[in-house]
């Protein structure tokens, strides 16, 4: 059941009403049951996977507390089991295919293949959450262990499928569901859900068809420089609105239950530098990677800049691989890792004679433009079918420039329109906040009871008008 499906939206209303009508003590069980049912609407058989991961994680965590000398071993046992499940479902085919190819290249043997298994929905997300739980217990950031808390933390339906990736210590205390019902709970929730619906149906889906065609291998091979730049930008916009929409609907759904989930996006295309981009894009993944991967690796090899640079590229390559079992994703990660390294080197120049240059206003604008160009370029391998296609498209973007448009003129116009919207998005958000505050001061009731419903209706109209059942969220596959 997708967040932008009619069934989800219509079932959410009674689900929320029932939630608030239950006594506090029942709410935990109710939310857990609804979460499991929500996952079962996709595939009842695979419900056992997140539950199995919860059981494994809990047993390992309890063993860590009960057997402190072997805590490290228990943590790694849990992590290995979780990663084994993730690898089995997500990377089995990729690993087998590549090993088979390499062995064949060495003349050993070929022809090893594995049967296709459906990727369990959300496995990449809840695996990371389970790992963070184990590490937090090991580092004593979590003291009190409770199996139901853990199940709710992993399976809480608003973030189960595609995040935001939550930390146990920020979600578990809220899962007592002790908040009292207020109108603001509904308003905050609906604000996010309706905006998410518009982002998904109006912005992300409008570009999807052209992007699918433009990235077809035989089309991409003949694309002009202009086509490929527009496709890179358009895909960047599509994935941003698609994932931001999902995150907004997840955050909104949680808010309807009085739970605050962390933000996932903060106008990423306004980033001035590559590190800032990662502080604004998929923020919960960035901080997970920083806290549970980059810091531990870097702490071990501290001191050497080369170790830092290598760890940045290596960690980002893993982030790429987390997104999908393909070399295109790995290349995307390596490219982003290289951008981060490039910026680190630039920052290191501050202490040299080039210092004044690095702090100039023009340089910061140049970095802003460069960041956009680099981020857009990296979307090519992320979206393209294979490395060869990525190379062909990227080559046409920078070498042997060619002009003309292969796709409908509407594609270029819609991309420009949506791009222009992204350019003014933070200012619109600020304006909306100002208006909200102004209305709240003088016309609080009119705002909540009249103005907002009118805005919601406009958003819902756009959602309904651009309803397309044939699209799903891009991040569902990761």
């Amino acid at each position, binding site marked *: *059941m*997708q967040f932008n*499906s*009619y*069934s989800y939206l219509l079932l959410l*209303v009674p689900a929320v009403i029932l939630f*608030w009508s239950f006594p506090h003590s029942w709410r935990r069980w109710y939310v857990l049951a609804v979460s499991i049912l929500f996952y*079962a*609407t*996709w*595939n*009842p058989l695979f419900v056992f996977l997140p539950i199995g991961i919860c059981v494994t994680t809990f047993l390992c965590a309890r063993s860590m507390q009960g057997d402190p000398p072997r805590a490290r071993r228990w943590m790694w046992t849990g992590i290995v089991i979780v990663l084994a499940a993730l690898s089995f479902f997500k990377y089995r085919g990729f690993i087998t295919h590549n090993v088979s190819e390499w062995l064949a290249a060495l003349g050993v043997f070929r022809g090893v293949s594995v049967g*296709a298994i*459906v*990727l369990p*929905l959300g496995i990449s997300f809840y695996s990371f959450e389970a790992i963070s739980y184990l590490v937090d217990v090991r580092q004593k950031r979590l003291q009190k262990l409770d199996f139901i808390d853990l199940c709710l933390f992993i399976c809480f339906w608003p973030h189960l499928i595609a995040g935001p990736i939550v930390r146990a210590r920020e979600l578990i205390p809220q899962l007592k569901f002790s908040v009292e*019902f*207020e*109108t603001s*709970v*509904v*308003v905050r929730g*609906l604000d996010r859900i309706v905006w998410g619906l518009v982002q998904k149906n109006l912005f992300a889906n409008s570009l999807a*068809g052209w992007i*699918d*065609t433009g990235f*077809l*291998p*035989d*089309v991409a*091979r*003949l*694309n*002009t420089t202009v*086509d490929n730049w527009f496709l890179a930008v358009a895909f960047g916009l599509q994935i941003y609105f698609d994932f931001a929409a999902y995150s907004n609907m997840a955050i909104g759904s949680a808010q309807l239950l009085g739970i605050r989930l962390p933000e996932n996006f903060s106008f990423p295309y306004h980033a001035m530098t590559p590190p800032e981009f990662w502080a604004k894009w998929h923020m919960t993944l960035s901080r997970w990677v920083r806290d549970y991967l980059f810091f531990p690796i870097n702490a071990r090899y501290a001191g050497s800049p080369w170790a830092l640079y290598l760890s940045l590229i290596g960690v980002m390559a893993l982030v790429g691989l987390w997104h999908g079992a393909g070399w295109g994703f790995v290349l995307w990660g390596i490219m982003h890792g290289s951008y981060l390294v490039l910026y680190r080197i630039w920052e290191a120049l501050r202490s040299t004679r080039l210092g004044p240059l690095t702090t100039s206003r023009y340089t910061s604008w140049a970095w802003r433009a460069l960041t956009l160009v680099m981020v857009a370029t990296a979307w090519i391998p992320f979206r393209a*079918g294979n490395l060869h296609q990525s190379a062909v498209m990227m080559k046409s973007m920078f070498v042997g420039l060619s002009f*003309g*448009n*292969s796709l*409908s*003129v509407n594609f270029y116009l819609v991309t420009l329109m949506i791009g222009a919207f992204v350019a003014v998005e933070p200012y619109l958000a600020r304006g909306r906040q100002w208006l909200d505050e102004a209305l709240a001061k003088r016309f609080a*009731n009119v705002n*909540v*009871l*009249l103005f907002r*419903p*009118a805005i*919601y*209706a*406009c958003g*819902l*109209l756009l959602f309904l*008008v*651009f*309803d397309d*059942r*044939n699209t*799903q969220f891009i991040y*569902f*596959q990761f």
Partner: protein
Amino acid sequence: MKPALSSLWILASTLLFLALLVTIDPFQQAIQLLDKMYGAAPEWTLVGKLYVDPETQETSHGENPVPSFQRLSEYWSRHAAVRHVYLVGNSQMYMVLLAPGEPLSDNPEKTYPDLLNEFYRAHDSRVEVYRLAAPNITYMEALWYLTYLVQHRELEPNTFVLQLNYETFRKTGIRDGMLTMLDDPNFASMIDKLARNDRPHSGLFLMALQKRREQIAKLGKTTRNDGGEAAHTGIAESARIGNQIETDFRSQLDRIPRFSQRLYMKGEFEGVLYRARVFLLHIKPTTPRSLSEATLTLNRSAIEDIANLCREHKIELILVNAPQNPSALLYRTAADHSLYENTIRSIASLHGLPLYDFESAIPASDWGVWIDGPDPIHFGRRGHDLMAKIMIEQEVVSKELQASGATYTTRVAPTLSAVSGND
């Protein structure tokens, strides 16, 4: 107000506002306002009352062709002894956009394929013409259609008249409405075969197969493994319970009056954007454009596959270079014009196909007016009449009547009848 009560109020008033918006139809209002502001051509010039005959026309215009083919199959099995001719092309074949000075008629308007049929039936020429047209049809779709037709003996054509058009060489893809044809297993396996071929347009077929597989899954039905090996996660296919619930919800919601209006409103919303493009950015349907190598390659390969399929099934393939409005030529440069001409001529000569060039057949005065200027694709009543006359005189569809002395009598006085002759 209590929180629970105010929350219910918010929900109820949101739904009320939504119902109000659907009733007001703001996008239609915006279209009318823009048309008024910029002096667009009156709406009535686009004729709404057209002659409809499901036995000679694919009436869904590509949105759901299977029922049309079922109907045709029944009709043609009763007329098996005659020559079955398909006219395949874009909306030029089924739209009438009245030219300046042409009054609106009370009778249903006929297009040139209808007039051809009428003529051949009247002269008992043992020819049945079927109009297989869709808006902005692509050559991949024409190949898609032909592949379907040759899978069904009673639908198999004797002659396949393919309209060639500069604008069509800029289009690619298979529309969603045609995907239901994949429910025919023989056809699906043929398309699967084409999708696996190393042809430039194969990827589009693969994409179409994958899309249909996901559509079927989302309807809560079981999917067949007929869709090639497109990389996908299988998420849509696996979500059986969720898909079934969604399908049930949708069918219930569609019973609410005006709920299905939403799909129509999408067209209106796009109409607003389209008008904004035309009026504000001055990017009009008549704005000349260049052909890109990518679309040219895809379309050329699709037409060549059509030629090969016709040869394989002993179907006569005829190419017709469709009329263009002389006052709204779409070529951006002379090089574009020669590239297009060279392409269609080289396809014709490579495959030994007859090519009729009717590009300048319809004089400027017979073309319709669209929004704020001459329409590049659609002509009026005189235009259709003239086109039928030319096709009969040039013996595009049938060569049997000329000898018998049968001639086409025009319904309206043509202003010009010069054609550039066949090639």
